């Protein structure tokens, strides 16, 4: 991997490893940015509803009511105000870190374009929600924001008369203005919520709640931070004056100094170019992806395990169409399938032990079918020698992404049917199998880590059979910046395997299987 994206990805991986220590991989905030964004949104929404109880709309009443709740009732309403502001600010931070991380992880293009594109309006709705919120306080900052915003909007020339005239002098400001702003400050966050919901529609079981521990940490930190540094208003707005120096919220209002410093056309064209660029990024350039998974009805009984395991909502259960005595079959939506292969790993027909005819399964990847995967495992295993032979099934997005002896690299380790591990050991291809997935905190294909762990723990179908000795199976979860740790764990595993007695009842690979494997290996080399 090279280039700015790879460098940023390694940077994220290193930062995440650092945060793994104080938080633990499952509470690592960098692995929970999406759920954190949702959590912060709900904090902002709940505190906003609470604040609305005390807020008065009116030229004088607005500021007075905010002062009253901040000073006289600091312990509940003032706290809610601080939570409202700081959670909004953190939401901006989380949102942009999420955007940058998804770009670095290359999870924004190809068939994953939808989540990226629907995330772009979320950015603007978050900003608009924040900006309209600042107007409501009607302090000096609100006056500054109101005047600067309306002067910018007036440059569009779309209003019947300059809306900045509303702030020309005290008599021109109407109490209805605050009613309008309250309406906008409610309507825009509702649209934001709608966009956030759409944003998560093309993935299965979208994580909209962070782990409880991280949620508690975030909420407690926000409450303590709000009590230590409460949000306060600046002086009351006075249209007979002009705010000279204002305390800016650099998360939400960072564009305002720029608006004052450059011509309005630069701002509008800049915003437009930034938005168009963000929308277009998934196709600049696009990604050439492997073909979508295909269903083979002769081997599919409609058990729906692939439906349950697909991370991208790409597989659905539909009525049977081939007359066989099953009620359902599965159907793949090629526009959503990213060819991660998790469905193949979930299919009970994906057994490498089967020898009757060609090896097929119920749902297979045309670019990397099960038959080829078995052949690759055979070829890789047969090339191993010496004591403590380790066959590694590695994730293409983790520490084991690079080619290495004894290693088969997969789009996702959950593509491996557990029976393939049984096969590799019981057919004498290796003394042990290592599954090297991507970092535990955030699987590239969302559920690869979870499904693999559950299958090996015999908690989720298809199970890793009881007869597979667990001391001969190693799982390593390591990100792209951890090849040294992976190597060390594999070496230690090989040393442990070398101490074990030979695996009993090995049925070696026969000549026909070896020939198939060799042919498949040659095909793969030719394809590369």
């Amino acid at each position, binding site marked *: 991997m090279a280039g700015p994206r790879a460098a940023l990805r390694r940077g994220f991986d290193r930062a995440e490893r650092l945060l793994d220590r*104080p938080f*633990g991989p499952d509470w690592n*905030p960098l692995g929970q940015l999406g759920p954190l964004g949702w959590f912060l949104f709900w904090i902002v929404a709940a505190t906003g509803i609470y604040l609305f109880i005390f807020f008065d709309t009116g030229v004088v009443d607005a500021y007075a009511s905010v002062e009253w709740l901040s000073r006289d009732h600091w312990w509940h309403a003032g706290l809610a105000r601080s939570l409202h502001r700081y959670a909004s600010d953190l939401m901006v931070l989380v949102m942009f870190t999420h955007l940058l991380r998804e770009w670095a992880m290359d999870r924004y293009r190809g068939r994953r374009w939808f989540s990226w594109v629907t995330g772009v309006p979320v950015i603007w709705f978050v900003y608009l929600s924040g900006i309209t919120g600042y107007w409501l306080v009607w302090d000096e900052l609100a006056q500054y924001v109101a005047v600067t915003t309306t002067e910018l909007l007036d440059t569009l020339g779309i209003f019947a008369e300059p809306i900045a005239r509303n702030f020309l002098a005290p008599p021109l400001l109407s109490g209805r203005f605050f009613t309008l702003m309250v309406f906008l400050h409610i309507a825009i966050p509702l649209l934001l919520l709608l966009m956030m919901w759409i944003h998560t529609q093309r993935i299965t079981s979208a994580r909209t709640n962070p782990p409880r521990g991280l949620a508690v940490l975030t909420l407690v930190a926000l409450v303590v931070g709000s009590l230590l540094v409460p949000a306060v208003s600046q002086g009351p707005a006075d249209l007979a004056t002009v705010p000279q*120096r204002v305390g800016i919220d650099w998360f939400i209002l960072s564009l*305002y100094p720029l608006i004052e410093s450059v011509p309005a056309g630069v701002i509008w064209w800049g915003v437009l170019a930034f938005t168009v660029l963000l929308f277009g990024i998934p196709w600049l350039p696009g990604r050439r992806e492997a073909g979508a998974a295909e269903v083979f009805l002769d081997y599919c009984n409609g058990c729906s395990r692939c439906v349950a395991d697909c991370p991208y909502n790409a597989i659905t259960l539909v009525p049977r169409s081939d007359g066989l005595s099953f009620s359902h079959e599965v159907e793949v939506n090629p526009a959503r399938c990213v060819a991660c292969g998790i469905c193949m790993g979930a299919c009970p027909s994906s057994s490498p032990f089967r020898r009757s005819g060609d090896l097929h399964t119920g749902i297979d990847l045309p670019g990397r079918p099960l038959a080829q995967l078995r052949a690759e495992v055979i070829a890789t295993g047969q090339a191993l020698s010496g004591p403590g032979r380790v066959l590694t099934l590695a994730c293409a997005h983790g520490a084991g992404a690079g080619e290495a002896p004894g290693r088969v690299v997969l789009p996702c380790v959950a593509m491996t049917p557990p029976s393939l591990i049984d096969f590799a050991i019981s057919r004498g291809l290796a003394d042990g199998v290592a599954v090297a997935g991507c970092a535990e905190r955030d699987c590239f294909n969302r559920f690869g880590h979870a499904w693999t762990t559950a299958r090996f723990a015999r908690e989720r179908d298809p199970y890793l059979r009881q007869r597979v000795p667990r001391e001969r199976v190693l799982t390593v979860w390591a990100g792209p910046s951890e090849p040294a740790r992976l190597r060390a764990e594999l070496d230690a595993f090989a040393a442990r395997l070398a101490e074990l007695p030979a695996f009993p009842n090995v049925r070696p690979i026969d000549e026909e299987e070896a020939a198939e494997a060799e042919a498949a290996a040659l095909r793969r080399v030719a394809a590369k």
Partner: protein
Amino acid sequence: MTAPAPFWRGRVRHLALGGTLTLALTLATAALSAWPGWQSVAEGDGVLRLSFTHSGARACRDRTPEELAALPRNMRTAQLCERARSPVRVELDIDGRSAFAADVNPSGLADSGPSRVYRRFELPAGSHVVRLRMQDDPAAPDFTQTAAFAIDLAPGQSVAIDFDATTGRFFLY
């Protein structure tokens, strides 16, 4: 059936260290939510704004008796006017120097709306003489409205000049 273990079981270190880091991030966020300040208008300066909405004249002529006779009774208006309005010429001098001079076009797709002006001038505090001239009818030989104001601008003060079409005068807020 046993109850699931509480989420914090065995996580004291994560709660302490993770909590400390999250609190530090929250405090940094709180600081950046109001600091550092932004100097929007220089210390010692004030702002003068010129803003008004005024319609330029339309080119009209009297209908001939023949034209009037050809019209239904209820449509016999004496004059026939173009839909489009003329631009409004506005000139503003501050302390004898031209600060703004423009022919402000009428608004609307058919140029039938009023001309709109909104200009902002940042000025040092002190006394200033502001002179305004406006011509809303190109047929008029000279400016149709003029005004002069002596303004004593305090630091941070905002003064606005508006136009009242009913009296035909500029005035100060």
